[in-house]
């Protein structure tokens, strides 16, 4: 089976879906000849032409708003926002518009729109490029939020996103884009939304994460295993829909959990995970669920990001502490 990294898996999904469905089109900054700043759209303009792969003017709100209109016209737009942090420039077109449009029109106008955006720290990007703002979108009902952490999921969930009749925010972990290849089949397959994946079994503690933090938790589990602590790792894969069942089952089994994310601690999605566990797994908990996150300060300069982001050491320490309680 072909081996692909995340960039290749996304590219492959886009190629196949554009072949399959002539309504699918891409728009965004530099998605054409350049192939996107991370090269996820390489070769697409050559293959599908500049009517289906469109370099837009530099204006996020119009990329998003036009995608809504394109969807209403019968197209299936896949919009790229160059970095997730720049969704802020078009924030009013996402939660209040795209996410609500089916509701605002009382069902007349669903919006089959996918928004792709890379994000995350660890690659020494300039300001705003690393901001992990996924939690800000959870308060936008109508929107699904997808956070793949590996190439297989990336392809399967991107195909699912493009075909979803509702708008999907698809966040790509730029640190993992080229961090190694895995088996990613050619052709159609889908990874459904709202199904967390138990990446690793373990009886002592559950580590809960999504996107790049999932990779971090897997490394932490390795370290913990060397210590005799067997960690279960749950990758949520989608924040909306949230797979409460898998989450609660895993944590109930171990009685202990640590939630890890790259966003700042306060009101990060980790809070929702903990609150859900409070509601659904309280009587199974042997210790308080801990959170390891970035600090409640702005993403710092590249020279300091390693201090800011959740580290292997911090995850391991939190897990050890939680196990010891």
């Amino acid at each position, binding site marked *: 089976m072909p081996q692909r990294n995340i960039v290749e898996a996304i590219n492959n999904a886009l190629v196949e879906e554009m072949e399959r469905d002539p309504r699918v*089109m891409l728009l965004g900054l530099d998605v054409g000849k350049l192939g996107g700043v991370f090269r996820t759209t390489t070769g697409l303009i050559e293959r599908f032409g500049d*009517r289906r792969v469109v370099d*837009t*003017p530099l*204006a996020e*709100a*119009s990329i*998003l*708003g*036009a*995608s*809504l*209109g*394109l*969807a*209403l*016209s*019968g*197209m299936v*737009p896949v919009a790229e926002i160059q970095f997730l942090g720049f969704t802020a420039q078009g924030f*009013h*077109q996402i939660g*209040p*518009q795209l996410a609500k449009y*089916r*509701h*605002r*029109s*009382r*069902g*007349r*106008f*669903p919006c089959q729109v996918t928004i792709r955006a890379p994000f995350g720290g660890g690659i020494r990007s300039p300001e705003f490029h690393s901001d992990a703002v996924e939690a800000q979108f959870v308060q936008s*009902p*109508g929107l*699904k939020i997808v956070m793949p952490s590996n190439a297989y999921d990336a392809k399967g969930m991107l195909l699912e996103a493009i075909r*979803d*009749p*509702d708008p999907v925010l698809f966040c790509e972990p730029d640190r993992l884009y080229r961090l190694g290849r895995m088996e990613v089949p050619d052709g159609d397959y889908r990874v459904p939304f*709202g199904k967390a994946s138990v990446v690793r079994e373990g009886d002592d503690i559950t580590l809960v994460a999504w996107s790049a933090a999932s990779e971090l938790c897997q490394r932490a589990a390795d370290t913990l295993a060397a210590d005799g602590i067997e960690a279960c790792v749950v990758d949520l894969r989608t924040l*909306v*829909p*949230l797979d*409460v*069942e898998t989450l609660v089952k895993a944590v109930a089994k171990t009685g202990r959990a640590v939630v890890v994310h790259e966003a700042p601690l306060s009101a990060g999605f980790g809070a929702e995970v903990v609150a859900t566990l409070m509601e659904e797994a309280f009587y199974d908990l042997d210790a308080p669920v801990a959170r390891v996150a970035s600090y409640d300060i702005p993403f710092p300069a590249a020279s300091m990001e390693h201090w800011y982001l959740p580290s292997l050491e911090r995850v391991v320490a939190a897990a050890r502490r939680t196990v010891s309680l």
Partner: protein
Amino acid sequence: MVERRSILKPDGTIVPGSKPRMDEEFLLEALRLMMLSRAYDERVIGLQRQGRFGVYSPGLGQEASIVGSAMSLDPSRDWIVPQYRELMAVVRQGYPLELITATYMGKTTPDTRIPEGVNVLPTQVALAAQLPQATGLAWGLKLQGKDAVVMAYIGEGGSSEGDFHEALNLAGVQRAPIVFFMQNNQWAISTPRRMQSAVPSFSLRAAGYGFPGVEVDGNDVLAVYDVAVEAVERARAGEGPSLVEAVTYRMGFHNTTDNPSRYLDPAEFEEAKQRDPIQRVIKYLTAIGLWDDERQKTADQEVAAEIERVVEAAQAQRGVRPEMLFDNVYERPPARVERQRAEFLKSVNGH
């Protein structure tokens, strides 16, 4: 100085030498819609004062601008993207007035939504957010080889939003078949036009996006129609977008929660009334023998009857029910939302 296009002067005479495209039959239909608009506004403001109607922004004074622009479209293929003050445009496009009325009366149900086949987007409360959407719609229709034009409405106030700029610029690049129709009614709630922008004519902005801009007397239904038809034909011919600034005046409050006495100069208001868009059509038609007291009476009665029919039909619509609360959020709702729905229904039924 930008030329302000005009055909029908406030005194009901025609600007010498001008040849309106609108024939007399069409003008009579325009007048009917304008009268309906005016009478409807007055009626529902009354209903609102009785607590039977939601927050409402009347089109008072802007009837020529609203009706003249909408009449340039072919409802079977063209689209209207409204802000919120273009009710009669949307009606002319095919969204039945009784369904709109029912919506304002709190019957916000799927029954009263924009019907399938009616090419109208929902009212947009978030100012200017409709414009990039309208550009996308026009661009998409063009990509699919459709013969359609989009008419997108915006107020002079909303035109200060960044979305205005982004939408027009993108439309220019894609040569999208769209008409940006600005109703400059001199007010954004209490903010006067001169505080909104230092631009002498909003139509000048079009040049900044590489397409034509036109200023028109927005109280002159003949000129509005002409200018709109030109812009629509241009769009349909593949020549891209236009911006129309219809200079008009808001002859009422911003909406039913507003109190203009706090900011409005009554003299200015009285002066504006002299430019009434309906009166000038009546004067003109009277002068050419197509209107008289008898016709006026009949027309008033017909309009009144139509409004009564509409209000009654709206009242007969079923109201909202708890089961509707969770509808139309997702096609496949997340399990958590389904669970909330079940809990909600249990809780309301428990009462």
